[in-house]
């Protein structure tokens, strides 16, 4: 499997995801945002960070960069695309994923390990997880408060396009377990074809017991097979 990680000025999780992908046997290439051609890729990752210093809106400027036209083309041709944190924000700004990420409800930057529940394991990204399995994954963001219009929310629910929801230690999805005010505790969503996943939590930070846990590994091992 070949992967490409898009790098913007201000990306800061690009090397973490590269380490995770390489560990999982991906042949990975880093792609600078000014490139106009993508290497042949089975998976494109838009990494976390603070592209363009979050100017205007998080992800707004990166969402209009040169390489993005190629990412959109590849995504429309069925290439797998994963946006993590700022990458999720960028994907919503490109229109590849609907909805948007607002300022956290408590106006604070949140950096902590949270519990998320796998809502749909019948996808290329999540098939190695069990349905309703809960994972401990790190979040680190200021704008992670998922918001969308009622019609889109309905579509997400009806078509099983919600990937992850924030939950408590028992797996219950409730307001107390919602760190940032996201609509219905949503932590990650798919597009209609389920070849694009956007998520605020950082699975690439959870691939090694030495520094955290390995709850993120199955996301990458789902993709490799």
């Amino acid at each position, binding site marked *: 499997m070949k992967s490409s990680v898009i790098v913007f000025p201000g990306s800061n999780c690009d090397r973490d995801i590269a380490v995770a992908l390489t560990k999982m046997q991906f042949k990975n290439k880093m792609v600078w945002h000014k490139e106009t051609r993508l290497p042949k890729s089975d998976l494109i990752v838009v990494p976390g960070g603070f592209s363009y210093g979050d100017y*205007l*809106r998080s992800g*707004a400027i990166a969402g*209009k960069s040169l390489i993005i036209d190629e990412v959109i083309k590849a995504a429309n041709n069925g290439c797998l695309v994963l946006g993590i944190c700022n990458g999720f924000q960028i994907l919503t*700004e490109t229109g590849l994923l*609907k*909805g*948007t990420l*607002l*300022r956290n*409800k*408590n*106006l604070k930057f949140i950096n902590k390990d949270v519990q998320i529940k796998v809502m749909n394991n019948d996808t290329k990204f999540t098939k190695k997880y069990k349905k309703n399995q809960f994972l401990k994954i790190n979040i680190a963001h200021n704008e992670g408060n998922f*918001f*969308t*219009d009622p019609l889109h929310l309905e579509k997400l629910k009806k078509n099983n396009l919600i990937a992850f929801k924030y939950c408590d230690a028992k797996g219950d999805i409730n307001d107390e377990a919602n760190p940032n*005010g996201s609509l219905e505790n949503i932590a990650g969503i798919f597009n209609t074809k389920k070849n694009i996943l956007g998520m605020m939590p950082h699975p690439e930070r959870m691939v090694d017991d030495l520094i955290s846990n390995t709850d993120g590994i199955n996301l990458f091992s789902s993709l490799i097979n």
Partner: protein
Amino acid sequence: MKFSVTVTLKKDVLDPQGKVVQNTLINLGMNLSNIRQGKYFEIEVNEKDQTKAEKNVDEMCKKLLANLIIEDYKVNKL
């Protein structure tokens, strides 16, 4: 030709920053009932025809300045 653009969150979108500013002003003894925070741009357009210039600014708003899922915008000629 110069224009101003004001971008604000839509009515039904939570504006926590505006709320904090509002509460602080109330704590300062100010008399107010609501604040919505927004963004302000001044744009000089290289176009002499006003209709065309307005169309350009409208396109700028739609393509980049505002996120239409959560924000409204207003254009004014200066």
